């Protein structure tokens, strides 16, 4: 009986540790996606830079920010994906809450599909279509 209880406790502890790591990863994705989005959006709305330059500059500068090695290149990809989402028109985004909601959706999709789609291939490859739809 005691052994059975101990096993349940260990199992729950393992699950909670896994959950904590997942939430931490999701939060990091959210933060990086949000700042990538915000930087790109601010550059092309406030500073009137061209769309491509603002997105590429955000991605390039973001790729030099040091992150812990255990996250591999996922934070950089999230910054770049955020900057790509930030290329959208000012008519679509009217408040910062919308940016936060888009970032939550983007980060969640990224984290949920990361194992399913093997690396970040498809989740990012879909985005050019998004931009072309926004611009046309």
């Amino acid at each position, binding site marked *: 009986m005691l052994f059975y209880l101990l096993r349940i406790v260990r199992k729950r502890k393992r699950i909670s540790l896994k959950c904590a790591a997942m939430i931490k990863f999701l939060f990091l994705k959210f933060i990086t996606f949000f700042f990538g989005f915000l930087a790109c959006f601010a550059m092309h709305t406030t500073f009137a830079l*061209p*769309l*491509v*330059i603002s*997105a*590429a*500059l955000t*991605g*390039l500068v*973001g*790729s030099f920010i040091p992150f812990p090695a255990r996250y591999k*290149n996922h934070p*950089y*990809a999230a910054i*770049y994906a955020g900057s*790509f989402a930030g290329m959208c028109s000012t008519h679509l985004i009217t408040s910062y809450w919308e940016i936060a909601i888009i970032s939550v959706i983007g980060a969640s999709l990224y984290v949920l599909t990361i194992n399913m789609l*093997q*690396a*970040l*291939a*498809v989740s*990012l*490859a879909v*985005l*050019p*279509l998004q*931009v*072309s739809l926004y*611009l046309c």
Partner: protein
Amino acid sequence: MNIEYPLIALLGAFLTFYLAKHNRFDGIRASASLSIIAYLILSALNLNPNLYSIVFFGGTFICMSAPHLFGIYTVASSSILFSLLFEY
């Protein structure tokens, strides 16, 4: 259909594909730096940079997603598909 769109998308994709294999570059850096360079060149030549740089950027974005998973045929077909979707 304009022939420029697939050509520019292919150029962007293949340049990113080969630059991403370099030691100092990964997919993201290659895509971002090539997009900036392409925009500067297009604006210097006065070749409608706002339109063509977006096509180029889309091409680089396709390839930077997974330079190790894709081969040259996949890259080429993705770029052509992207240019078709962009146009229509």
